[in-house]
């Protein structure tokens, strides 16, 4: 959990005195090199007009911080392992040509599980359907919940703010790194499922949910679209986690609250009696990614899902901003 090592890549003071602003690709290095040449008097000016390069450097450093962590890599390993386990289980179950679950409706397992033994590509969909309800949002909750509170807990937040990054920019950088993690985590699960599916099962033309057939390449394109939709489904809980993270100085507390909230919302979403509130829960339209596999594709649920995620991002993102820019940083 040492923040010192990853923070080594953190840019130094901004190259404010450098009149040739606009270098965008040199980010952190430019800062370090140009830093000493900058007169101390230029400092306050730099705060008001940071260069794009400096902002990019901040994002890059945040990304490196997130992805270099052992914890992140462990989460990736879990996400890659779930499709592997599902694939092996289905393979063993259907080894002798038998069908899954005695041929009944697949009410027990994740969606698409019945199709996996006939077409390995469906393991991608089944893997995402299996990880989306819990594993993926849990991983996002851990990363998002830790983003601010973890820094505060480790005592590094004040140092981050000493570097004249600006609180808003730091918050945006944190959220962007969370979003990048959403995408990366989804792709890890999807690619793992794709490899396992192609290795263990026959692959061919894809039968849509509506019974029509599309070619394998079209099916792969839809799989990519589904992965992107699943990643977008995590935007809401990312913003929620970021907001919770700004409320506390305890990284563990923020993670636990975010994941606890996720479970609560999932439970509320499963009670038919609470149907009035369910359309407003960020988990409610998560499975809408399956609509991509219909023929014709039904965009209604997908649109609702994306709109809801954008709404959560806007509400909790701005709430995080309101909280983070107005509170005292004591740690």
């Amino acid at each position, binding site marked *: 959990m040492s923040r010192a090592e990853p923070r080594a890549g953190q840019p130094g003071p901004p190259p404010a005195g450098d009149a040739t602003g606009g270098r965008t690709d040199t980010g952190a290095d430019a800062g370090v090199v140009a830093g000493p040449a900058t007169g101390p008097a230029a400092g306050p000016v730099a705060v008001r007009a940071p260069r794009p390069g400096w902002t990019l450097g901040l994002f890059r450093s945040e990304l490196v911080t997130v992805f270099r962590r052992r914890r992140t890599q462990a989460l990736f390993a879990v996400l890659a392992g779930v499709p592997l386990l599902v694939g092996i289980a289905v393979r063993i179950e259907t080894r002798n040509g038998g069908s899954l679950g005695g041929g009944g409706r*697949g009410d027990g397992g994740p969606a698409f599980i019945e199709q996996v033994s006939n*077409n390995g590509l469906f393991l991608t969909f089944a893997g995402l359907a299996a990880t989306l309800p819990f594993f993926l949002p849990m991983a996002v909750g851990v990363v998002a919940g830790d983003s601010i509170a973890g820094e505060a807990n480790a005592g590094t937040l004040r140092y981050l703010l000493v570097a004249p990054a600006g609180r808003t920019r730091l918050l945006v950088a944190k959220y962007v790194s969370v979003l990048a993690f959403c995408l990366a985590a989804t792709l890890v699960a999807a690619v793992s499922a794709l490899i396992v599916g192609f290795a263990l099962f026959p692959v061919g033309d894809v039968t849509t949910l509506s019974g029509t057939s599309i070619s394998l390449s079209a099916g792969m394109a839809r799989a990519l679209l589904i992965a992107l939709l699943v990643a977008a489904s995590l935007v809401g809980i990312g913003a929620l986690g970021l907001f919770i993270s700004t409320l506390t100085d305890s990284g563990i507390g923020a993670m636990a609250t975010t994941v606890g909230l996720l479970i609560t919302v999932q439970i509320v979403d499963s009670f038919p009696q609470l149907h009035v509130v369910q359309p407003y829960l960020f988990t409610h339209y998560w499975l809408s990614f399956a609509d991509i596999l219909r023929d014709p594709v039904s965009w209604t649920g997908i649109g609702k899902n994306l709109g809801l995620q954008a709404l959560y991002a806007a509400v909790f993102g701005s709430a995080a901003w309101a909280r983070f820019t107005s509170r005292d940083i004591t740690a």
Partner: protein
Amino acid sequence: MAPIQPARYDDEDVPGSGRGRRAARYAVPVAVAGVAAATISLVPALADSGNPSLPSITVEQLLTKIAASHTDAVDGTVKITTDLGLPSQITGAGGAMFGGPASVGRGPGRGGDSPAAPQSQLTQLLAGTHTLHVAADGPDRQKISILESAAEYSVIHNGAQLWAYDSASDQAYHQTLPQDARDRQDTQPPGGVPATPQDAARQILKAADGTASITVDRTARVAGHDAYGLVVTPQHADTTTVGSIHIAVDARTGVPLKVTVTPRGGGKPVFDVGYTKVSFSAPSASTFTFTAPKGVKVTEGGSRTGHEGTAPTPQDHMNGKDAQPTVLGKGWDSIAVVTTPAGVSSGSDQAGKQFKDRAHGAQSLMNSFGKPVTGAFGTGTVFHSRLVNALLTDNGTLYVGAVTQSALTDAANAAAK
């Protein structure tokens, strides 16, 4: 260590004076949430609201318009809501929590049947809200898909072939339709329940002929189309539970777009079927082709040759051409009587069939749900819902109708004499 004060490096120039500014920042998320809430509640209300001004029309003209409507080609999304007021144990409401396909209102089916068989699937339309995709191109090619959570159940009729594919179990059902069945298919898609507003309107207007008052109602917008309203109120029917039926008819094409059945007792509509999106251009031909994918288990339904064939299919029941049930009374007060020997279910009414199947399996459930009654016919159990009532006597006769419970017991008493 002095705390680092907020907003020192922030983009804003105005130095804040403590609390007021902090509070002001929280106005942003609140405002975003407020605007979103307002948008969510107002936009759908605006989209399908208003009463478009259409040239006035008489009932006769409107009925002629409906009769003349060409609905050969249709491609749309249908929403069906059925609220019979049944306890949730019966309808099996509730969904799987962690990503499993929701099993809302799944019909019991017959023992050992393929999960892809239409008989075991279409009964689920009798409870809850379902979204269907309906496509048709002429009398020979129709497709109905029940959109479920991450799954879909499709019935595809193409010429002599009837396919059904259930993506949740990845199983298919196939049946070759005999010639006479094809001839009497009309444009009715192979479904057990009136799955489209056209079907529902056709059945209702047929039943309403001479037994109900039909009036023109206010205009409305349905699925983005201007529509005339039509209200059917049963008349000369004392015991029916049907209050009124509202039909929205597309002003341009005369196609019924929405049918709403309100029970006599008032309250929420008991049955509501309407397009949420519809186009009257022919769907692509690939919609109606189905080739069983490799590895998919296909259950052959066998080819039927008329009524003496094996199991009666939903088409028989709902087309009203199945001669099996005796009908007592006329019009809205009519009661279907089904004698059910030795557990072979051949009920005309899907609801009754569902009750009966359940009743065989779950005696305790029947006792908690049904109400025991006695009369000249002996003893029996009355099953009550907001629209359809059923009486199952202990000697195996089932009385079903959209009539009051006392009408059922009266009919049973009369039959016992």
